[in-house]
């Protein structure tokens, strides 16, 4: 675990120096919000019409912005040759996965929070006073997204030429059913003020997060091998 933590700290440190991944995720989420803002502006939609769309808008933004981060999570290590350096260290290789999960979670969560701020600024939305339950869903949904996405990113890392295509192809169907749909529903329920109603969706997210982590723990040694 200490090695996974060291990988996460290293990733976050290098990311804050280069700002490659976080910057593109932030710019993307800003552009998505701008696009939605103008769509609403031109069609003169009322705030009542906005209400059922809040949750899908947020999760579409989180998902596509987060995908930028997941796309490069392992490929950067592979392309600069440092992945082999990590694989040579005397540890269970699932530690590499857990390190990447920690760093991706931190960075994507950071972008999610900025996306929420952009949403509030563009749509003058106050979350009906239910920001805290929404944050709970965002934290858990993002975690499930990151554990599954990091696994897929690891699986695709050796497919050098088609990596950029393979990750979305593998990720979108899996995420859509196991992360996006429960997260969107749970966020809608949280916005209505009753987080208790969202427990079935939160349970689905939790169960799938455990399944993805278990798969990664058992298979990551084989996943990284060429």
């Amino acid at each position, binding site marked *: 675990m200490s*090695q996974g933590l*060291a990988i996460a700290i290293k990733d976050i440190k290098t990311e804050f120096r280069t700002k490659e991944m976080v910057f593109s995720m932030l710019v993307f989420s800003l552009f998505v919000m701008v696009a939605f803002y103008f769509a609403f502006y031109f069609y003169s939609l009322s705030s009542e019409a906005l209400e059922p769309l809040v949750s899908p808008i947020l999760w579409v933004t989180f998902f596509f912005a987060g995908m930028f981060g997941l796309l490069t999570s392992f490929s950067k290590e592979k392309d*600069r040759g440092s992945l*082999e350096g990590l694989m*040579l260290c*005397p540890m269970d290789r699932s530690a590499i996965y857990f390190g990447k999960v920690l760093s991706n979670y931190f960075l994507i969560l950071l972008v999610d929070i900025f996306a929420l701020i952009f949403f509030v600024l563009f749509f003058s939305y106050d979350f009906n006073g239910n920001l805290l339950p929404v944050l709970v869903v965002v934290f858990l949904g993002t975690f499930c997204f990151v554990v599954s996405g990091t696994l897929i990113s690891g699986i695709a890392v050796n497919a050098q030429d088609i990596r950029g295509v393979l990750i979305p192809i593998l990720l979108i169907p899996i995420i859509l059913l196991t992360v996006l749909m429960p997260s969107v529903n749970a966020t809608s329920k949280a916005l209505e003020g009753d987080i208790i109603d969202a427990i079935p969706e939160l349970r689905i997210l939790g169960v799938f997060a455990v399944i993805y982590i278990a798969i990664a723990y058992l298979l990551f040694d084989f996943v990284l091998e060429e």
Partner: protein
Amino acid sequence: MPAIEIKNLQKRFGRKKVLCDLNLEAESGEFLVMFGPNGAGKTTLIKILSTLSRPSSGNVIINGFDIKEESMEVRSTIGVLSHNPFLYDDLTLKENLIFYSRMYKLKKDEKTLKTLADEVGLLHRMNDRVGQFSRGMKQRAAVARVILHNPPVLLLDEPYTGLDYKAWEMLTDILRKFHEEGKTIFLITHNVELGHRIGERLAILVNGKVAFECEKKNMDIEAFKGKYHGLMGAQK
């Protein structure tokens, strides 16, 4: 006990056999140099020895540990240096060494890290980002990474690629020093003159098999070159 023991090693990629019943031993403290043309299976062999790839069949024992059953123990007793330094350009040399110390669960204080950097002649660049280093300096920094955990066996895959004369000489001196310290060194190279100069025992890999093996003292450079070029023609 041999430091490296390879028995009937085979590696296949689909139907293609890259290593075919390869047998080889390196005694503890020995400097073994392996030559071979492109496609002979040299890099595949190093990847298997360093547990980056699994053998299709056969046994490999390093320092008494089986690479299939005890891969973590193997990894803690080897140091791998290739043409790629495995370092992070956006971190300083010191940060890179601290990171790898953590990965090897070592407690390295400032003084030890400085000694290590001094050993490879990079003490004055400790706080510079590795991305600012020249190719030769990166390779020296990689040597510091490799010896961080003081491994008794060093596996070197074409570590001289892209080095200028000065860096080349410096790396050779460092390898000689390690050999004098009793480390087992397994070097893979194309460079016959270099390998013959620094190695103790020489082997030639052709078509995934050890086609020739000899003690350096039993064969001068010209005779060895003749043998090597003769065998190169046999590579499919």
